[in-house]
């Protein structure tokens, strides 16, 4: 990359006279209204043609909330003092084993990359979840965006007409701004809760599609009349949100009952349902899709819980990776599966495992990622990382680079304050990059 980290010139594409944004908007103050969804990511500094090519890349981010046990998944230690009751099974990569709770995943292992040497710093959910999701940046007095909001901002919405960040989850849906941090609410997530469409996305039964076309045609006529004599800024922003809203309405089939064959493959579970919606969202062109699974905080009865949880993950995760692979989409979709931390090797008095950020695993595949790279290692008991430990900052660098963003030379500018997009003391993990 040729850009200078100190170059604070505005983006050359945003320089025309009719696009005079206020400084705060241009630089992405907390109330950024206009560049946000519609522009090229006004915060990126600078954003040059080379990176523009990355704009078709997408992310499927699978968030396993509460903490998946690395010992019952990617880094089993059978027959050791902390190994637990499950066996390990071979995978499609010779010499690499995973827990017997993920038989389907074991058969696509050559398509994945796994780092077993993850070592992070926060062992509480309340602080750990946001710290991990934000890449654990240094405290600079601002609230950093979650990865989804960061990608939405840095890469823009693409050409789908849909919001750049969609979060598929159990529980409530709606417009969730909290992930966006200082980027401002525009970079928050459109949440699909319980597979239900977002509020007001469906045309009321009282209106036919002809009615809808008629009224919008009159609305657009009125807008043309108005905009003839007004500066374009407000009208363009307003038109953009209506166009996005209508694009969502057009995609209502995303919320139709799924094909029973898909349900059978993804699993008739909340995670299966949401992973399937996630795939459809990726196919529809959404830039960043977060699929959320809850309930992994297994302080008690860890082994029965993982015996129940892991097969659901195994099935849905394998199905989505295979589907994306079959459609040739792993070329441009980055897939990540992770929690906020791993679980303690030591088994507690409730036959559970507690929080363990010191040594755990993250899996990924897709664009920019070297398939079959199983890197990092832990000691025989699984208690500590024996390879070079990788913090979440390393992964943010790695993923940004996989998406074509030079993470070491790209900054946000927030109210004049330059902010690195990933922890500047970390760097990309080259062994994971293709």
């Amino acid at each position, binding site marked *: 990359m040729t850009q200078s980290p100190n170059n604070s010139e505005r983006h050359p594409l945003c320089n025309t006279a009719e696009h005079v944004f206020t400084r*705060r908007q241009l630089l992405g103050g907390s109330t950024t209204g206009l560049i946000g969804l519609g522009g090229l990511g006004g915060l990126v500094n600078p954003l040059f043609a080379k990176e523009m090519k990355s704009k078709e890349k997408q992310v499927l981010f699978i968030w396993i909330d509460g903490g998946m046990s690395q010992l019952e998944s990617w880094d089993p230690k059978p027959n050791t003092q902390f190994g637990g009751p499950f066996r390990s099974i071979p995978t499609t990569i010779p010499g690499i084993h995973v827990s017997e709770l993920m038989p389907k995943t074991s058969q696509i292992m050559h398509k994945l990359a796994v780092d077993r040497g993850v070592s992070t710093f926060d062992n509480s959910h309340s602080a750990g979840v946001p710290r991990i999701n934000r890449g654990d940046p240094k405290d600079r007095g601002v609230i950093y965006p979650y990865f989804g909001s960061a990608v939405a901002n840095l890469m823009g919405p693409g050409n789908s007409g849909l919001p750049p960040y969609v979060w598929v989850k159990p529980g409530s849906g709606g417009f969730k701004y909290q992930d966006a941090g200082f980027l401002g609410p525009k970079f928050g997530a459109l949440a699909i809760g319980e597979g239900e469409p977002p509020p007001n996305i469906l045309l009321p039964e009282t209106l036919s599609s002809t009615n809808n076309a008629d009224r919008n045609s009159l609305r657009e006529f009125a807008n043309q009349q108005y905009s003839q*004599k007004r500066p374009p800024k407000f*009208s363009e922003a307003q038109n953009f949100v209506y166009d996005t809203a209508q694009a969502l309405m057009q995609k209502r089939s995303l919320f139709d009952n799924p094909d029973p064959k898909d349900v059978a493959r993804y699993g008739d579970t909340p995670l299966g349902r949401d992973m399937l919606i996630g795939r459809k969202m990726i196919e529809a062109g959404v830039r960043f899709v977060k699929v959320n699974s809850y309930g992994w905080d297994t302080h008690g009865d860890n082994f029965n819980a993982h015996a129940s949880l892991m097969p659901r993950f195994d099935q849905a995760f394998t199905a989505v990776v295979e589907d994306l692979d079959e459609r040739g989409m792993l070329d441009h979709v980055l897939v990540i599966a992770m929690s906020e931390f791993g679980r303690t090797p030591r088994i507690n008095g409730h036959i559970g495992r507690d929080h363990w950020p010191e040594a755990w695993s993250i899996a990924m595949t897709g664009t920019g990622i070297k398939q079959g790279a199983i890197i990092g290692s832990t000691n025989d008991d699984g208690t500590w990382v024996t390879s070079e430990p990788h913090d979440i900052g390393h992964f943010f660098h790695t993923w940004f680079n996989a998406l074509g963003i030079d993470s070491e030379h790209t900054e946000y500018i927030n*109210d004049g304050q330059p902010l690195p997009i990933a922890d500047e003391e970390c760097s990309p993990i080259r062994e994971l990059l293709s």
Partner: protein
Amino acid sequence: MKASLSFFVLLLTCSLSEPLFAQQLHPVIDAQIEAATNKPIAPPSTDSEFVRRIYLDLVGQIPTSQEAEQFINDSSRAKRQTLIDKLLQDDRYSRRMSEAFNVMLMERRGEDPDWQAFLSHSFQGNIAWDQMVSSMVFPDEQNEQTRGSAYFLTKRLEKYGQNPTDFPGLARDIGRMFLGMDLACAQCHDHLFIDDYKQADFQGLFAFINNSFIRRDTDYPAIGMKPVKTKLAFNSVFEEGEFSTGPKLPGLDEIPIPEFVTGEEFATPPNKETKAPGVPKFNPLKFLAEQLPTQANDSFNLNAANRIWFLMMGRGIVHPLDLHHSDNPASHPELLQLMAEAFAAHDYDIKWLVREIALSATYQRTSMVTTGLDDAKPREYRLFHEKPMSAEQLMWSMITATGHLQHIPDTTNTSTSQTDEEQDQLPLGLEHIRADFLAAFANPPREPETEFAPSVRGALFVLNGPRVLDWLESRPDNLTAKLETLETGFATPLYLAVLSRKPTQEEADKFNQYIESQSDKSTAIKQAIWALLASNEFAINH
């Protein structure tokens, strides 16, 4: 131009307290704005533009079609001033100002009836801004009409999410709201990019409030204060050394902390029976109330004038509103200084300043771009620049346009007596309507609403939400019902009701032909009303 400017400056500096000047700030505004540019300046707004804008700004809603038509057809020369004065006396003026200041001061943190009562009382009585600020930073709990002002402090001390009590946030907001200085980045060190903002400024503000707490013994918002015994110690993350400060406003002297013998700190000791906390003899908030809202405090005056200017003009002379410092200069520094001094000299009379700005040619210019104005920048005020509408303005305006006000049931005392059948339906009371509009159009908590920030959520609310579509159903005397009585000529009453203007010929043809060509005229009328309600011209204050 220059001559008249000097004249007014001279007049101002010589005789601020003269009653003559009391009526005459608006020529100064225009002279200053016009003298600052040599480029073309937009002509006055049309009557239609003006009537819509002034209703939105002074009473928080568009005019009814009768009000708009009456004004447009009025041929008297002084009709704009007459309308301004009429609206300033309108009951809806205090509602509008309460809404606008609530958004500005609380940034959508929540709602509280005592706080609302404080705002209503203040704007109904045109209470001076310095008194309002004094009430907010040092509430008088004996005064039932104003004690809700404590909500400014107490709401900010409430915990939200997993965060600790945000004392720094409260100190920051006192700086932002009343001094126009966002000192957040100066909490841990002198500001890195704003030379004027020092860590000692932040810490001095912090020392006013870091011993305060929310009182739990009252059913209204009330703030308590622990005895303050020592200065606040702080470190810089960049500089070596130990620092300390007592309560101190930027640019003013530090307030000495008196020493009391242990046990003698309280004027009124804590009462274990009533659970009332003790009242300390030394309360830094009392000094804050004495030193902050004063004529001698330039920052206070400049911030106040700038924020009221923003309310009317959509952009601060210093913008963003909370970044007054030398690297973010005012677009018109002299004008801001003059307005601030005049506002202070007029005993912080908000209505007076609002009126003067409304009377200015600057405020009354058209927002339409004509020759020579393509490059007009908001900071130049050569054109009236479009402004966003608040959730409240959108709500009242949609109610007004559709003629729905008369059909909103009074649910203040009947909320518990709904039948089962009613509970399945859309709740019709104003409080539910308001909640829906806030959910669709308001910013999230702690986000200032100063920029235009339309959202997909808001668009979907208008496109498909049941609320607005319900108001299009024909009901006695509403807009749909009125248009249904017509055989032809729908467009003029439609445009007057929704956009406060008469349609052009092209617009009239388009809408009349559409409605006349449809076999289901009633549906066509609803479509036409909706199209204008959903239009950019409606959603923007222009």
